[in-house]
């Protein structure tokens, strides 16, 4: 086995702020994203808790109606564009994709750094709406026309921020596609790649092909606001439904930019903690591509009640149901992976199991929204809010936390307190379901979304939901506190492979050296989850 001498890990190299913010090392860039993302996530959580406080009781408690409108818009913009779209690819994709492929960096390291800088510039633009102009947009994160064309709030800066952030997404996607095609280690064919890499590959194609559409669409909003072109505003000959088409042509595939990487994480966690090969490797890999492809054609289901034609509704409803097939393939294969496995219950697995449970609720409630008859009743109610958060937070959010606990020992070379981590997980799980399940009930009862007030009959689900937000907040504080404490104080060294994983990142040091590997990684004989012939990993 060839040995490459490495003295320093990536954390021990150059010191100082500039050595980080101008680093082209994919691992450091991954961590730059992580710190920025967590910061924005906490801002988004704070805004969410403020909204829940306002909704604790009927009537005005804490916020003016206009402030509430601006807060839910900013909450959406931050959580969608600054947290969940970049989340897993930008942090764990950047850090682990090259290592899992057995190479030393992404194909374009400088472009990778540029992506981070563009992300930061976009984030500053989005947050600047808090301070400059007439305050943050009050349109909702969807910027629906014609209201977005007419409102006096700072829509222009918000859409420009989303436009800039799109470039970061496109460049990251491009980088990953080229890296996967060009830099796989010798012997690693496409069908021997880890499923996380497959998920990132499918995601990257969506980022590359769909994001330009939202960029142009948002520029059309700016053109409409400044020049009154007549694109979307019906009073000057525009078509507001055209805006919705263009917006959702990107934004529905974007749901899969958010969800597919999470599927990849779950496909890594389950075999490691079940100590057996993944069930249906090819089915999971190709279903990622199928979801990415079919996901392009189903955007119309967001517009069933917007005045769309009956023919359009019929076609989009059928297409929507098609995407359930590859998604269900994944879930069945995950569950089959656990069957007769030697299950080791560690914190990351708990997050993976919670993901499956919550994502299933998110998926099934999605079927009700994809069906024309039920959607008429449920559209624009809290049912949609509950469904969306079950998919995005209960799914992708929990997968993100699972990945953070799974790879924490590899990233920082330290181990967190498992008992505290499990307690935090329990609080998060209870808090999450207490927060969002009542939203499904309130929606079924007919409570509309995006109002700061509601009728007295909706009081109970709203009260329970707000209590849930407090439990969730405590869980988040405990989880992050535990990880931060471990980072600064933990003396426990996890070694190279604390979980017994067999993808390549577990063969290198923790934290990895600057060049990623201190010795040539050894590929398992029959693919990345071959636990029967797993390579011997010596410390």
């Amino acid at each position, binding site marked *: 086995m060839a040995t490459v001498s490495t003295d320093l890990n990536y954390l021990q190299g150059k010191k100082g702020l500039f050595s980080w913010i101008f680093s082209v090392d994919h691992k450091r860039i991954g961590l730059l994203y992580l710190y920025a993302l967590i910061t924005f996530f906490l801002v988004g959580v704070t805004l969410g808790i403020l909204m829940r406080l306002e909704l604790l009781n009927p009537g005005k408690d804490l916020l003016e109606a206009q402030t509430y409108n601006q807060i839910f818009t900013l909450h959406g913009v931050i959580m969608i564009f600054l947290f969940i779209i970049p989340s897993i690819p930008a942090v764990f994709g950047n850090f682990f994709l090259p290592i899992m492929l057995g190479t030393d960096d992404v194909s374009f390291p400088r472009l990778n750094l540029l992506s981070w800088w563009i992300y930061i510039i976009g984030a500053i633009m989005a947050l600047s709406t808090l301070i400059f102009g007439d305050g943050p947009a009050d349109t909702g994160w969807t910027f629906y026309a014609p209201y977005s064309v007419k409102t006096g709030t700072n829509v222009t800066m918000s859409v420009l921020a989303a436009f800039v952030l799109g470039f970061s997404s496109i460049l990251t996607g491009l980088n990953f596609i080229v890296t996967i095609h060009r830099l796989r280690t010798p012997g690693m064919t496409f069908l021997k790649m880890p499923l996380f890499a497959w998920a990132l590959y499918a995601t990257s194609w969506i980022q590359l092909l769909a994001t330009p559409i939202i960029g142009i669409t948002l520029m059309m909003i700016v053109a409409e606001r400044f020049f009154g072109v007549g694109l979307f505003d019906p009073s000057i000959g525009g078509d507001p439904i055209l805006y919705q088409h263009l917006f959702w*042509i990107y934004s529905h595939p974007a749901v899969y930019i958010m969800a597919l990487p999470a599927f990849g994480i779950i496909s890594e966690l389950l075999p490691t903690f079940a100590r057996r090969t993944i069930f249906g490797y090819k089915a999971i890999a190709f279903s990622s591509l199928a979801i990415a492809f079919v996901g392009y054609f189903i955007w119309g289901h967001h517009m069933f009640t917007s005045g*769309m034609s009956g023919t359009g509704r019929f076609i989009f409803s059928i297409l929507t149901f098609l995407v359930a097939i590859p998604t269900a393939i994944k879930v069945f294969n995950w569950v089959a992976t656990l069957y007769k496995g030697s299950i080791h219950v560690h914190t990351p697995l708990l997050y993976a199991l919670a993901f499956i449970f919550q994502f299933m609720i998110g998926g099934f409630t999605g079927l009700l929204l994809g069906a024309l008859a039920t959607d008429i009743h449920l559209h624009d109610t809290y049912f949609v809010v509950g469904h969306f958060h079950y998919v995005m937070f209960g799914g992708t959010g929990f997968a993100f936390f699972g990945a953070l606990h799974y790879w924490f020992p590899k990233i920082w070379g330290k181990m967190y307190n498992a008992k505290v981590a499990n307690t935090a997980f329990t609080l998060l799980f209870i808090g999450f379901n207490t927060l969002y399940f009542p939203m499904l009930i309130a929606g079924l009862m007919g409570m509309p979304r995006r109002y700061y007030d509601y009728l007295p009959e909706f009081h109970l689900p709203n009260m329970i939901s707000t209590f849930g937000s407090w439990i969730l907040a405590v869980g988040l504080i405990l989880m992050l506190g535990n990880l931060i404490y471990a980072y600064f104080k933990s003396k426990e060294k996890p070694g190279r492979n604390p979980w017994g994983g067999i993808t390549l990142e577990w063969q290198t040091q923790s934290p990895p050296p600057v060049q990623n590997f201190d010795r040539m990684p050894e590929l398992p004989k029959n693919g990345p989850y071959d636990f029967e012939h797993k390579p011997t990993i010596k410390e």
Partner: protein
Amino acid sequence: MENKNLHNTENHKEHHISSYKDHFSTLLALLLLTVVTVVVSVFGADLRSLSVATALLIATVKVVVVAYYFMHLKYDMKLYTWLVVLVAVLFVAFTALTSIEYFNR
């Protein structure tokens, strides 16, 4: 690690060098198609509602010629051709689905 380029035989392929004949043929085709576009729109073949479709069709042919010859798609890996086809399929699907919805309102 030195494994970065070991397996990339594609990197070592010779690049195709186009002849002047190819370049001039491409230029000639583009000029010819531009003339056809102008003739159709200005000198008014009576196409009525098909005039936009005709202009788009000619523009599409020009795109194909540029991509295929001038941008070397013809001489590159087949994968790249498929990727361009994929983008075209998506574009057509977006336009078709939106149009079906619009014209049935």
